[in-house]
């Protein structure tokens, strides 16, 4: 092999090493960043709560209140049965608002079951087929789990039950993702 060829092979080898270093660093970074949200089979509400800090900011409260009341309202029989208008979004549509890891873990069927268990805590049964939803003043307290990720403790005044939901806010494009509910 010529000296020039050796140099090229060496150069190629260095490139491979650089690529490997970049890949390893990217995966390590993602692993440490999303530690809590990496494996939903091991996820628990208590883990998220462990290092969370209480949030008193009213602007955060109302942002989350609106997201949650819209979501719960999407389960109302007005929306889920015959009166679906152009602007109405059903709770099934919220599958697309799940955090990728949570979506991957639940899959569509799992989501529908989890969502029903969660949403039915806020049902106000009017008759067998018609029901409305309790949407006002549900948030008891809010905790920040990580930057822009909030755990909301909810309570139903009517059914006297508690529920939890974790919502991640993307402050760049003002979008949210549901990261957990129970």
């Amino acid at each position, binding site marked *: 092999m010529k000296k020039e*060829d050796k140099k090229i092979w060496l150069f*190629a080898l260095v490139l491979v090493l650089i*690529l490997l270093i970049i890949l390893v660093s990217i995966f390590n970074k993602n692993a440490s960043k999303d530690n809590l949200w990496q494996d939903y089979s091991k996820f628990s509400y208590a883990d998220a709560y462990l290092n969370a800090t209480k949030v008193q900011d009213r602007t955060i409260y109302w942002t989350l209140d609106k997201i949650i009341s819209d979501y719960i309202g999407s389960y109302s029989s007005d929306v889920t049965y015959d009166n679906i208008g152009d602007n109405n979004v059903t709770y099934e549509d919220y599958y697309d608002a799940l955090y990728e890891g949570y979506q991957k873990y639940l899959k569509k069927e799992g989501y529908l079951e989890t969502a029903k268990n969660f949403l039915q805590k806020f049902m106000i049964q009017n008759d067998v087929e018609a029901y409305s939803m309790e949407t006002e003043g549900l948030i008891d307290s809010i905790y920040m789990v990580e930057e822009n990720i909030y755990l909301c403790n909810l309570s139903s005044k009517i059914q006297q039950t508690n529920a939890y939901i974790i919502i991640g806010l993307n402050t760049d494009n003002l979008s949210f993702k549901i990261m957990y509910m129970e």
Partner: protein
Amino acid sequence: MENIDENNKKAIRAFLIVYILFAIVILCIIWIPNFTKTTPDFAHYKEYTQEDVATKMSDYYTNDIFTKIILGQQSDIADYISTDYLEYYETSKEEIKSVLNDFGINTKIGQVSVNVHGNDYIYSFDIVDGNNKLRLNVVETYPYKYSITLDDFVLYEKNSIMQSFDKLEISVQEVYQTMDFIEYTIDIKNAGYESLEVNLETVTDAYIVYGDGLNLSLSNPIKYDDETLSNNSSIIKKIKFELPINMQSEISKIVFTNVVIDGTTKTITLDI
């Protein structure tokens, strides 16, 4: 030999092409989810401002109280009267209810003023029915969690703090907060000096430090017949500062500038 070199070069070129394609694929795997996954419209949220927050609950509380009055549910309002208020004025919910009974279906709600006090929001407004007029303050610790006080009274706290300065003991026994002023009831004890005197004869003898190092002197001087405390004696004084409620949570110190201990004048700073 030339053929081998040529083959080598081809192999290297092929390797570099594969390498670049591989790198592109890896980058695509990393970035594609962000390109292909669009956020649905309904998964966007509105950012609220402090003004939005204030008006949102102003409407809720005024509507709620107005509805209860015209429906004759005055006892529901009386149930929310703060225990601090009842304790301070030694009154009962029943008495408050009888006051509220003067207001009926012709009641009008006045303009709402909103003040922030630490984590609390205070919504104040008048209710008026003919010649009857009453100021209500909804003290909200968290949205939908609140108590109600009447007139200027906002908050009342007992036995807040106690601090010692060598043989001088000062304890704040009560803090009475209104929309316009804050009043401390302080207990000053001489715990070992021959003589101790905390003078408050001029307004500059005591001041509070609040906000970013701002000072505010006493609202009025206080004169007692005998201010000198002998060993093991104490005196209770009420000191008042005219500071609006939205700044009262920013008070960090009370400073006494004219404290005479065994003939020497000293300044004593009480951390709040």
